[in-house]
């Protein structure tokens, strides 16, 4: 049975249809890439799943429970965590506090030493555990990205939505980032990742979903999709093999 299911989801902003009747499902433990040129509706779709935006029509379910129509905090507690395309850290809090939050306010409602332990574990996974008491405002860009991932992990989610989490990293950081995400999939978490870096998509995702102008144009094995004439046409001018 599928874990996350997107059924005929549509999002309109006035006259613009940003997501147009998109349907697909994710099985538990899968890691799927969400591709498409800029403006194709990938981030909007992520926002619809996380509840950041309400859908215009359609239905999204997690393990059979309806997510559409619920608030972001309810969806978070139901087991969906995400990172943001433009990194969003909490600058006035320490690293440990940043990461502790979803553990404290999530489904399991940890508090005190327990919450700290969850935060410390998540920080360790991304390699920031030695700076737990530092203020988040002092982190470099790559470390802010790590921190955001640690925060999503501390939610102990069933589904993790990554919105271009690997963007803006240099080659060695990218290799580290790919290894980090691969490590996560071994733990059984289900991941939907928006990504432009084909190297990462090839390395991590056996299956991809491709969007163009709000519509789903391909949902197939990665190798097939990258040679699919429709997909290549959508990326027009961008080298798919880059």
């Amino acid at each position: 049975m599928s874990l996350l299911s997107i059924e005929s989801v549509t999002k309109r902003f006035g006259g613009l249809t940003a997501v147009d009747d998109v349907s697909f499902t994710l099985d538990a433990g899968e890691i799927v890439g969400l591709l498409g040129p800029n403006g194709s509706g990938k981030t909007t779709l992520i926002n619809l799943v996380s509840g950041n935006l309400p859908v215009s029509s359609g239905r999204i379910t997690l393990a059979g429970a309806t997510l559409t129509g619920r608030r972001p905090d309810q969806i978070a507690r139901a087991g969906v965590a995400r990172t943001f395309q433009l990194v969003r850290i909490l600058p006035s809090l320490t690293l440990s506090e940043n990461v502790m939050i979803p553990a404290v306010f999530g489904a399991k409602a940890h508090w005190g030493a327990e919450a700290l332990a969850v935060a410390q574990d998540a920080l360790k996974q991304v390699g920031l555990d030695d700076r737990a008491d530092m203020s988040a405002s002092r982190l470099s860009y790559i470390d802010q990205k790590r921190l955001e991932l640690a925060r999503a992990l501390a939610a102990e989610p069933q589904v993790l939505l990554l919105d271009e989490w690997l963007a803006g990293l240099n080659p060695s950081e990218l290799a580290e980032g790919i290894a980090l995400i691969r490590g996560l999939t071994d733990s059984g978490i289900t991941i939907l990742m928006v990504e432009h870096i084909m190297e990462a998509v090839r390395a991590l995702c056996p299956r991809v979903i491709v969007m163009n102008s709000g519509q789903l144009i391909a949902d197939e094995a990665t190798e097939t999709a990258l040679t699919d004439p429709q997909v290549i046409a959508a990326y027009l001018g961008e080298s798919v093999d880059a």
Partner: protein
Amino acid sequence: MRRYLPIVGFLVFAAAPFAVSDYGLGLLIGAVTYVTLASAWALFSGHTRYISLATVAFYGTGAYVVAVLNETLPYGLVLIIAALIGALMALLVGLSTLRLAGVYFVIFTFGLAELVRQLITWYEVNVTGTLGRYIFLDVTAREIYWQMLALAAVTIGLTAFIHRHRLGLALRVIGDDEVVAAHAGIPLARTKLLAFVASATILTLAGAIASPRWVYVEPAIVFNSTVSFLTVIMALLGGANRLWGPALGAVPLFFAFEYLSVNLPNTYPIVLGLLFIAVVFVLPDGVLAGIEKLRARWKRGAA
């Protein structure tokens, strides 16, 4: 040692009426009232950074409830009713406005105080036919002082409790980034509402306790927007997100304004404005944070 400091301070303040003149006691009441107002204001606004200018809407309502009910009901009951009315008002206002962000919230809260004032004026003129009311209560200045001091202590105690509780963490996250807060599982509306109602209830109660000092009450007197502005400046000066920040800002500023309003009655609002600007530019996080920064720099310099 540091743990007992607040208790010692409280006892010193509690004993102060025996050592000062009537005029001195009046000043002490004013100072403690502003400590309460600034601390209660910061209870909601300190961490969430929702700058509320509605302080006087609640404070004035508290005073007006006493003015209306003081001849018909026992004093204790009047205070309870005032607190309940304040809480109910905050609930209604909160439900309809806490979705507003930034400057819209500031403007709304400023308008709220004016709205309440105009509504009461309209009601008094058209329905009851009087504008002013008298408060003749058998409450001495000392009793008012002790009640206000107790309320201040409760406010600071409650703030300390919230800081250590998950509600405090939730408010800090909301102050930093509401989108992240929601996506981490924090129910935004409920969290903000809870803090706003707690803060407003205390503000209303402070108005009710202070009201017998006025004797004569009318809307233009009790809904004076200067109270709202002073409260904000005091809390920001001390550091609105610190436990003792609002109190440390309130005491010196209260005495400074008292001195200025006596000695420079005409230019006093200018000084007030300049001070507001200075606080925002020079000490955006308050004196306490400023001192910490200086200390850190000095330490680094020494090492």
